[in-house]
């Protein structure tokens, strides 16, 4: 039973949140078991992921139906905007932690290890510099060059930022063809990016000896690009959903926050990549 109060739509009781909690419980237990090679871990993790998927589909399905039913007024729309903005801010801070680690390692930890008493007493012969596998590992690796695949990837993501904006213009002006084409192109560019990224990881492991275990360079490299890749995947999925909804004719020139939220997210992922390109690959 839902209530319509003072214009602000308040949803009725919903079972989706507890389904989500159950999903995360299974996922956390499953992942732990899996890490420790205990039986049932994989299954539990899969169950958790499936439950999460069901929950997302159900929950967002609800939201979409409510929206299509005309239950959301301008104030609800504003709530969504605030909510999405705060969410992206939290994502920024999540990446900040890993960028912080990268800068700390480069500017403080590695020079420190290569200087003063550290070299004299603990790590004789260590010269530091960046990239490095650190003073105590035997791992030899080649760093990832910036001006090959990563540059192409930069181009892909930047153009996808353009296409999604172009699609948005189409939406605002009621040009359905432009909207659909723009979205489809954006999805395609995102998927191409992911494909190249996967290829690059393979290349790193197979040819360059650059692995998660390759010292602090490998660790920051893979976690930063890995979490970015994860976000691109999520973004691409969301774009596909939006594309589907656009096909179903959900969006109107003056009411399409879901589209905007996804495009904000996509631009955020873009910006993170630019920082990655500069600080992880290039400098």
């Amino acid at each position, binding site marked *: 039973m839902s209530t319509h*109060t003072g214009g602000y739509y308040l949803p009725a009781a919903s079972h989706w949140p507890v389904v*989500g909690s159950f999903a995360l419980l299974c996922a956390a237990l499953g992942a732990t078991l899996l890490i420790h090679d205990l039986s049932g871990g994989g299954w539990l993790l899969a169950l958790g992921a499936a439950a999460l998927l069901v929950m997302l589909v159900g929950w967002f399905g609800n939201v979409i139906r409510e929206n299509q039913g005309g239950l959301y007024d301008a104030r609800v729309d504003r709530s969504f905007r605030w909510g999405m903005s705060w969410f992206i801010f939290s994502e920024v*801070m*999540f990446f900040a932690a890993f960028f912080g*680690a990268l800068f700390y390692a480069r500017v403080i930890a590695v020079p420190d290890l290569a200087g003063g008493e550290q070299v004299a007493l603990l790590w004789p012969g260590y010269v530091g510099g960046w990239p490095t596998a*650190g*003073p105590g590992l035997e791992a030899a690796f080649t760093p990832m060059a910036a001006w090959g695949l990563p540059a192409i990837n930069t181009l892909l993501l930047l153009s996808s930022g353009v296409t999604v904006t172009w699609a948005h213009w189409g939406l605002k002006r009621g040009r359905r063809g432009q909207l659909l084409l723009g979205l489809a192109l954006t999805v395609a560019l995102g998927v191409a990016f992911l494909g190249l990224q996967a290829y690059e990881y393979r290349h790193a492991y197979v040819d360059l000896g650059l692995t*998660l275990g390759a010292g602090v360079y*490998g660790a920051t490299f893979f976690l930063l690009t890995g979490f970015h890749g994860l976000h691109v995947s999520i973004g691409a999925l969301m774009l596909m959903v939006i594309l589907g909804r656009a096909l179903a004719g959900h969006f109107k020139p003056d009411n399409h926050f879901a589209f905007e939220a996804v495009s904000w997210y996509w631009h955020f992922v873009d910006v993170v990549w630019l920082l990655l390109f500069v600080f992880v690959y290039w400098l």
Partner: protein
Amino acid sequence: MDAHATTADPLASTHHGAPRGLARWLTTTNHKDIGTLYLWFAAVMFLVGGLMAMLIRVELFEPGLQVVQPGLFNQLTTMHGLIMIFGVIMPAFTGFANWQVPLMIGAPDMAFPRMNNWSFWLLPVAGALLIGSLFLPGGAVAGGWTMYPPLYLQGGISYDLTIFAIHIMGASSIMGAINIATTILNMRAPGMTLMKMPLFVWTWLITAYLLIAVMPVLAGAVTMLLTDRNFGTHFFDAAGGGDPVMFQHIFWFFGHPEVYILILPAFGIISSVIPTFARKPLFGYASMVYATASIAILSFIVWGHHMFTVGMPAAAQLFFMYATLLIAVPTGVKVFNWVATMWRGSMTFETAMLFAVAFVCLFTIGGFSGLVLAMAPVDIQLQDTYYVVAHFHYVLVTGALFSIYAGIYYWLPKWTGHMVDETLGRWHFWLSAISVNVLFFPMHFLGLAGMPRRIPDYALQFADFNRIASLGGFVFGASQILLLWVILKCIRGGRRAEAKAWEGAEGLEWTVPSPAPYHTFAQPPEVK
């Protein structure tokens, strides 16, 4: 489900068809239900964390190993810290926010009622993973709530479970904070400008901002622990070019704002309670808002004061020392404003006010010991001693916890519709206020004399103060049963509370009946 029902009186339509029993609590989207859930969750966790503290105090009652062996002792200390911070104080404040923020700003509910439910129901999951790990082979995490590597890298399965628990709990906090911030920014009744909001709402807005800014950083930090433990990365290992101290930087970049997350809502509660019982408006409203904001901003640049002994350069030590000292200024403004609010008022001392007054006085003691710790050269002697334990229990127990008590006594009439049993409340207050000082004040002396923290056994010279502290602890712990009694009694009956339960109370929450109806402000009130 008739999505188009635009009933004139939404209150009439709500219970019809709504789930009952357990299903109601599992699926509720009502901010009052969810607030209640948060508060009871905090109460249960308080019992668990408190019992761990009691075991710690039993072991420390005298030198030698008696009931708790060192391995278990470290687990108890760690879990006690984690549970009290993430399971008690934070959920309790979120519970207050859920109940009070919509009432105080004239909103019909929270901005995202379904997500609100999820924020809560993630907590029991995180709590279960955390507490459940006590029963796994090797026991729970034992590296302190600060989780420093490389020690954290040595542990077993429960260490990974705890990392996931922290992820989940962080997701819960972030969603809760987004919800509260959005509610405050977007759901205010017409005329409720930002500078008319009750201070509690202001403090929560700023707290929400802090939460959204730093919880993801904690998530990042523990993720690096996870990959260092299991996937061969070397973030915190010098051999791979990493640095164990890097974890401390990231952790405390979260950790110091976190301690203000634990105190800013307390400032908000106290700023509601004192004017009510002084029958006088809050002194210096605007400066209170600016002080809160300054504390929040400064809190991002002081984290190094937890790391004065890691061996940072003198310039860094000095920077962090100065920045930390600065925080005393806005905090002082708050203390002075509270005193000025009481000054020439017409005061009465209901239990809520007693706790508020005790808060002002005892929190300041905690603040002063914080200042002593902030002096980098002195902290060299005090870091990781019981002096620190004394400091943070003054700000956390007689600070955060006492403000929660004050808030409970203050708003219970609004929540239950019954007045609190003031006689029992006074007993609870006096027993708590006296025993808590017997419990924590001697810890200052222990720290100064050289007793390290996180030890299950100690040298003979520390025996006397430890014994006193333990005795104080037992009395304090037992006194909290009184609180439970007061609350249950108040729920079940008592003198009926009027809409405006306290003579001097001001604010929208006192314009709705007591107990507050299931749905309030369906039609937004007009604020002048």
